[in-house]
Every structure is written in C-alpha cells, then in structure tokens.
C-alpha cells in the first residue's frame, strides 16, 4: 500500500485522540502482546502450534520476571482461516486493545492484509513465517526463511542428486508465484532447465491430469511449493501412481506444517526440503525446548518450523524490549536494529538491520520414516534476496514488497 502522508497523519492523530492514554505512556503494569493466527479453519495445522509456541514463550518470560518488571498480557484472536477477519482483528488489536506489539499472520495474504494497519497505527509488527521474501517496511520484522536462504541451498542440492530437468508446481498466490520465480532463477544458475511451471489454486485437490502431464514432460526433478490441506492430495496421488519411486522431489513447503507426519513413510520418504528447524535437530537448545513444550502440552509432536519461528520471534522482541528498557516502538526498533541476536531452538537468529529480516541456520533435510533427517547444515545464512532490493537504513520510509524480476 502506498502510504498517503495526510492519511497517515490524520489516522495517527485520531488514534491518539481516541485513546486517552497515548501509546507510549503504557503506564499500566503489563506489556500487551497481540496475536492474530488461524487457530481454526483450513490453515489451523499451521496456526495452532504457532499459538502454542507464542504462549509458551510468554509464559517463560513471565516466569522469569517479565519484561522490565512488567508481565506480558496476551490478547489473541482466531482469524478462522478467513482473510477478511485479519483486517478486522488487526484493527481491533491496534485501535481498541492498543497492544504494544503484534505477532501473527500466516499466509502472505494475511500479512498483506494487516501490514498497512500496523504501519498506520505505529504498532510494531512481527511476521514469523517462512515466506517469499522482499517485504521492505521499517515497521515489520520477519524471521522466517526466505528463498535465497532456502531455495538457493535446496535447488543445487536436489539437482545434484536428481538431474537438470526441473518441473515446478506451486500454489497460485503470491507466495507460490514469487517462489516459483526464485526456483526458476536458481535452476538456471545451476545449469538446469525448468521444463514447466504449473500453478494450483489452494482448493485444487485432484492432480490426476497433472501427474500424467508431468510424465509426458519427463523431468528429472519435481519442485513443489504447494500449500495447505487440499494440496496435500498431490503427494498422496503422486505416491499412489507409484511416481515417488521414479522421479525425486523437493519441496519448499512440505513439512512446515508437519505434513511429513500426515503422509505415511512410504508416501513421504525421500522428499528433500530445507528449513531452519527440524524436530530431529539434536542440539541442547532444541532438546530443552521440546522438553518444555512436552511439559506444557503433553508431547512435542506438534512442533513445526513456523511454530519455532513464532517462538523465536517473541523471544527476539522480548530481548529488544529489555535492551531498550521500554516498549516504545521507535526505541524497540532501534534496539532490534543494533544487530540483536538470540539463541532459539533452531540456533542463532540475528536481526539484519538493513532488511529487518533474519540471519539464521538452514538445514537441508530428507523425509525418512515420517521424520526430517538432517543431511547438511548451512550456518548463518543472510537474506540476500531481500538485501539486494531493500535497505531500510538508507530508505527508512520504504514501504513495499519487492518482486524478483528477470
């Protein structure tokens, strides 16, 4: 959204007027954290563990004495997998509940629905999800893996294993569209050829014809950026046709919502992925985290990539509030931009001051018996895709999502 200055000013003025207490004067004894996630509806496989992770992080912080002596108070809304409810609850959080920070949003659509509201109302916003990259906005911090961190590592690895002819399947919305372009770019850079790119709306669940088309194209490798429950059918039907034994597959999304545990071992085995987190990471930080999760929720089977991202996002924000000694938006942003870093279950996460994205570890993995087996670990990767287009230190007023161009 191109921000209109006048609009922005009047909106802020009106808000300040409407709220008797200005935002900075959080004289109350609590710090207010707002959360908007799909904890029901078709995306709840992503949202529920994210919600649990957020609450776990808040509990820990409160148990350790809170932030600067104040307890964190959570205001959470369930957006029911309905994009329209994001704007509604987003505004409720900023205008009625007047929270100090908002963590949330899952699909890129939901992020774009609330980002303008957050910016307009000067509410600090954390989007803690793996995504297509390119968002450049001083008010938002993103700690999810971006294509340069993920695709750039995954594609050469997979092509090395499988071959040069790549067939791309992607979800038909901005995540899929942009990620597909990144995939094409890295395929070309590694001397391969993209034979076809097919996009599927999120409700497509019959892939019979696609599977026949893929065979007609006869690629060496499939790269799938498919999203949500309906698209899971593709992997089932692929395996049912016996294709999983014939053509290797890599995915930029499968496993983010623990899909490898929904698919059977026979269906999933061998699919290559690259993420920041795996339950199988055998590090003291991860083991401790899984133990805490199990204590809070029974068992740690539900933990997944973006739940951990959300957990790390809350920790990062908390760290910055402590460092700033305040919840004032500008002071917290300054603290975050100082190159702040935390140790999360998935390793070190450092805020990149230039892009407000994260520098983090990426693991190349393979599905094996409903687990994600780590094959290779790439330490502290920079979000170079966004860095190439976005520099918030030089242009703090930039506000757009860049798309890769060829």
């Amino acid at each position, binding site marked *: 959204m191109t921000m209109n200055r006048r609009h922005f000013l009047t909106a802020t003025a009106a808000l300040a007027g409407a709220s008797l207490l200005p935002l900075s004067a959080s004289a109350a004894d609590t710090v207010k954290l707002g959360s908007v996630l799909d904890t*029901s*509806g*078709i995306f*709840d*496989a992503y949202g529920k563990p994210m919600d649990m992770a957020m609450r776990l992080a808040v509990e820990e912080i409160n148990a350790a004495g809170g932030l600067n002596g104040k307890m964190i108070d959570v205001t959470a809304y369930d957006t029911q997998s309905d994009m329209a409810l994001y704007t509604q609850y987003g505004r409720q959080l900023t205008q009625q509940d007047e929270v100090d920070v908002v963590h949330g949003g899952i699909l890129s659509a939901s992020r774009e629905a609330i980002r303008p509201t957050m910016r307009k109302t000067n509410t600090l916003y954390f989007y803690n999800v793996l995504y297509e990259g390119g968002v450049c906005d001083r008010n938002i911090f993103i700690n999810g893996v971006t294509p340069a961190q993920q695709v750039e590592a995954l594609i050469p690895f997979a092509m090395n294993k499988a071959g040069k002819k790549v067939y791309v399947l992607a979800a*038909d919305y901005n995540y899929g569209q942009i990620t597909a372009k990144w995939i094409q770019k890295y395929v070309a850079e590694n001397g391969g050829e993209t034979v076809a790119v*097919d*996009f*599927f*709306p999120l*409700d*497509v*669940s*019959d*892939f*019979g*014809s*696609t*599977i*026949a*088309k893929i*065979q*007609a194209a006869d690629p060496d490798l499939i790269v799938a950026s498919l999203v949500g*429950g*309906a*698209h*899971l*059918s593709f992997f*089932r*039907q692929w*395996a*049912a*046709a*016996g*294709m999983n034994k*014939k053509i290797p597959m890599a995915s930029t999304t499968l496993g983010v919502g623990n*899909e490898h545990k*929904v698919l*059977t071992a*026979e*269906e999933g085995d061998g699919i290559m992925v690259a993420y920041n987190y795996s339950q199988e990471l055998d590090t003291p930080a991860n083991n401790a985290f899984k133990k805490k999760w199990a204590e809070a929720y029974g068992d740690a089977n539900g933990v997944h990539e973006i739940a951990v991202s959300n957990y790390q996002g809350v920790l990062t924000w908390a760290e910055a509030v402590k460092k700033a000694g305040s919840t004032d938006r500008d002071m917290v942003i300054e603290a975050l931009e100082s190159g702040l870093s935390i140790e999360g279950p998935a390793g070190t996460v450092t805020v990149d001051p230039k892009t407000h994205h994260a520098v983090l570890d990426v693991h190349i993995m393979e599905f094996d018996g409903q687990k994600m087996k780590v094959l290779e670990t790439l330490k502290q990767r920079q979000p170079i895709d966004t860095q190439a287009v976005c520099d918030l230190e030089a242009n703090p007023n930039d506000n757009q999502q860049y798309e890769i161009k060829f």
Partner: protein
Amino acid sequence: MDLAAVIVVETVYAVASLILISAGLAIVFGMMKVINLAHGEFMMMGGYATITAVNLGINIYIAMLVIAPIVVGLIGLLVERLVIRHLYGRLVDTMLATWGLSLFFVGIVTMIFGNTTTGISTPIPGISIGDYQINGYNFFIVIISILLVLLIYFVLKGTRLGLIARGTMQRSDMAAALGYSPDRIYMATFFVGSALSGLAGAVLAPLVGLVPSSGGAYIAKAFITVISGGPSVIAGLISSGGFFGVVNQFFTFAISPVVGEVALLVSAVILLRLLPQGVTGRFLKGKL
C-alpha cells in the same frame, strides 16, 4: 499413444467420480424431490468413518464398503427423522435446513477430529501404461461406479422395492395407493441416499487430504450434475456426469485444472439455459 491412453483413463475416471459423488444426491432428489445440501458433509463423514475404522485396525475395504455407508446411513436416518420429514414438499426450506445441517456437521467434526488434514494411503499400487505410471486406484473407483449404477438399475427395475420406488418417483401418492406408507418409503430412501453419499466419501478418502470442510468441494459438483441430469436418476447421472467429466478433463489437459473446473461450471450454465429441465427433462424422458 500412451499419453492418449492415459488421457482416456483419466477422463473415464473423471466421469466415474462425478457419478459416484452425485449418486446419493440423485436418489434423494429423484425420489423425494429433496435437495440435500448436507450431501458433501455426508461424504466427508464417510471419509472420517473410514479413516477412524482403518486406524482401529479394520481392513480398509470393509471400512470403505461396509462401515462408512452404514455409519453415514444411520446419521442420515437420524437427520430424516428429526428434520427432513417435517419439511416434505417444501423444496426451498429443505435446501435451507440441510444447508444448516452441513454447517453443523462441519463444526461437529471439527470439534471431534480437529481441523487438520488427515488421510490414509491408497491400498492399490500404481499401474504402468507403456511409459506412464497411473494411479491404480482410479480403476477401483471406475469399477465401483459401474457396479453402483448397475445396482441402482437392477434394484429399480427388478425388485418390488424398485417398483414402489419408481411409482413414488412419478407420483408421490402412488405408494399410499399401493398400501405402503410414504413416510416409511421416504425414510428408507433417505437412508439409502445417505449411505451412498457415505460410500462415495469413503471410496474417495484415500485420494485426498481430508478436512472437515472437504464436503464443500463436492456439493457444488454433485448439485450441478444432478440438476443438469434432470428427473431420471440413472440416465440423468450418466448423461450429465459423462458430459461434465469430458468437458472438465478436456480443458484440464488442454490448459490447466482451474480452466477445467471453470469450463465445467460455464458449460453447466449454458446447458441449463438451453435445457431448463435438465438433460432427461428433454431427452430420454421416462427412462430410469
């Protein structure tokens, strides 16, 4: 050449699955002039019944072909007794009430099973056609659909029950004249229709990731197929299922799955504009 064979198989499969997902709705509509908008949810519950049974260690074929139809049929029976029977003869009201029921079932299943994608894998391995691998389960669905159509045909044509049913289809007071309580016949019909919906949902479950809202994907297609087919159950199902299946697959292969779906919908609008009583309202009149 192999690709052509694959396309033919996929098209036959598309037709068969349309017939399968529409059969339960068609019987209820043909016999009772009731449009059950909770049909998709009945299918979804058939899927869940199957998955639950399989997870309990029951053989997948028994789960699909026996348990799911019975469970969903019983749910249908309950629905008929509690809601539908108060609304006979009020077409629009039954549509609204069953729409309400569909929301209700989505909610209930969400509360019981959670809103996460579940599923089971297909029990049949892939089959090779020349250089192509094809989902072997497709053939299973085609066979089930053919058996289903034959079964409906013989029941309607060859049994006393079918005679009563056909009489009721033409004139609802016929059954009463023959000395059968229409109330009982409607009850039985709704049970059978629901059971078929459950069967369809069960048989399709291994192909899709199942969520409580899965029913929505089926109802529109089933609704269109049944209405476009018109008053005759079998002839209507086969003609409109055949037509839409071919249109859908043609555009799917030629362009993309989305265009295939849109082509199906557009052709439905055109078809209904040209034949406002459905295919069998105009042609094949009086056929089963």
